[in-house]
């Protein structure tokens, strides 16, 4: 099952790309011209797969191994498509270069070729700027989203380029699929049609700049397991967040389907959410994530940094652990130690759970001393959740101790 899940996205990408090349493979042309055309279709197939991988649907995420995995492949497919599409016009121009340099330049120049090439060039420029927003610019999230939306327009313009060239098959079905995926994402995910209505029950401060918010379902509740996260938008008449869905890890799942999320003030929007009041309407979309799913019955090491405690807390609140578990909870200062008393009480009542909580200050934690008494780590399954720097340092440390990458589990929760 795991192998099938791991292969699902590569198979999807290969099917889209190879299928399209096979359908539209040109015959009787020079090698360079054939390659130029194949590069264009390969880029087109990759972009189509990339559009499918940006959809936020729970059933799709389950099929494809989780939302984070989908996003990683979405980035890979999009960037690879961009590189192939850059090469596409260059190889076509190179094909005619030996016969006529003028014709080679006219192959690239939109001033020589009119609207079909203008559409292709604009498409490439939109892809270029959209990806620059991801890879280069340090810009606010809202502006990044707008530029990233331009990537979708770029994909459509690329397909318009093909239609204007007079190629109707297989372009029109692809254009239909691309419009469907973009519309699906916009209406169901960004406008919230796929989300369910909840209402804020209570808001409780649990540490400095961290509140725990209880959400009560107003209709069919979302199915959630500990370790998963939901996308939440606050939409009350007197309170409105930043107008978009934010990912929050669920900190508890009640018997009456009430859920709790913990919100740390990490930016303007999450700071604003700290002041939300009971009875505010909320839209909840999810749940997503496979972070703590399918844990084997082997000894485990959990390491949480700061707000990264939440998925582990949700699991412990759901019941005692089934495996010998060493739990390392790191926080900056005592005032940042959210849920520490509750965690200590849970650890005292659970024979298999060993909790070590530590304030690390502003210095990077020294994992050599923290993990020195944990023998035989090579046989542990390790689950990490915290700031990216901490997770990266810990992965390196664990690797040096003989822990293989397959034994190290973490989620980036990065939606850019």
């Amino acid at each position, binding site marked *: 099952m795991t192998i099938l899940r791991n292969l699902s996205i590569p198979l999807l990408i290969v099917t889209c790309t190879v299928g399209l090349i096979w359908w539209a493979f040109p015959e009787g042309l020079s090698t360079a011209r054939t390659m130029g055309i194949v590069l264009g279709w390969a880029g087109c197939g990759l972009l189509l797969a990339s559009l499918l991988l940006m959809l936020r649907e729970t059933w799709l995420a389950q099929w494809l191994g989780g939302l984070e995995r989908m996003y990683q492949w979405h980035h890979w497919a999009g960037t690879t498509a961009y590189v192939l599409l850059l090469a596409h016009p260059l190889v076509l121009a190179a094909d005619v270069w030996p016969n006529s340099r*003028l014709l080679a330049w006219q192959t690239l120049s939109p001033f*020589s070729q009119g609207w079909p090439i203008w559409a292709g060039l604009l498409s490439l420029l939109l892809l270029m700027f959209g990806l*620059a927003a991801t890879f280069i610019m340090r810009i606010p999230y809202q502006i990044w989203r707008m530029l990233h939306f331009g990537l979708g327009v770029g994909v459509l313009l690329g397909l318009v380029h093909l239609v204007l060239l*007079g190629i109707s098959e297989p372009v029109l079905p692809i254009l239909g699929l691309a419009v469907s995926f973009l519309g699906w994402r916009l209406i169901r995910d960004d406008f919230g049609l796929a989300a369910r209505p909840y209402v804020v029950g209570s808001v409780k401060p649990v540490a400095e700049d961290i509140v725990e918010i209880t959400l009560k379902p107003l209709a069919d509740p979302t199915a959630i397991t500990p370790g998963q996260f939901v996308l939440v938008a606050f939409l009350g008449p007197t309170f409105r967040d930043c107008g978009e869905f934010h990912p929050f890890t669920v900190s508890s799942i009640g018997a009456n389907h009430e859920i709790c999320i913990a919100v740390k003030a990490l930016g303007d929007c999450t700071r604003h959410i700290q002041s939300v009041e009971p009875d505010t309407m909320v839209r909840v979309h999810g749940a997503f994530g496979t972070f703590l799913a399918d844990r084997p019955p082997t000894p485990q090491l959990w390491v949480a940094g700061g707000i990264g405690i939440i998925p582990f807390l949700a699991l412990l609140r759901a019941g005692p652990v089934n495996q010998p578990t060493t739990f390392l909870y790191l926080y900056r200062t005592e005032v940042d130690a959210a849920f520490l008393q509750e965690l200590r009480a849970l650890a005292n009542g659970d024979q298999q759970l060993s909790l070590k909580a530590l304030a690390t200050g502003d210095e990077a934690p020294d994992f050599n001393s923290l993990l020195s008494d944990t023998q035989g780590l090579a046989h542990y399954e390790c689950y990490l959740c915290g700031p990216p720097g901490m997770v990266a340092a810990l992965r390196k440390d664990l690797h040096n101790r003989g822990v293989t990458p397959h034994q190290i589990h973490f989620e980036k929760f990065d939606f850019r």
Partner: protein
Amino acid sequence: MRRLYLSATLIFWVLVTAFWAGSLWLPPAEKIAAIAVDKLISPTELAKHTAPENCWVSIRGNVYDLSTYLPEHPSRPDILLPWCGKEATEAYNTKTKGRPHSSYADELLVKYRIGILASEKP
């Protein structure tokens, strides 16, 4: 991924600039390569070349042998094939959808010119 994006973008613009520069410094042979084919081809002769592997088309008074170009045409072959052996100026000027071909296409067409269409004697 970031490195791949940056290097691919840089190489793309360097090569585009190279193609543009290459078009400014044309080799002498290309400058004088204006094809001067003055062979007169009658409409009857034109009408004999209707097969995909032997496709002549008349556009704006000239006759072009498009046999080798047919596979390279971006649209489906059945768009162009019906015009083999015929006068196709109107179709070329409008692409049957009211849109003219580009100057690039005009430039490309020169390569395939084989003569001038003679007017039919009454």
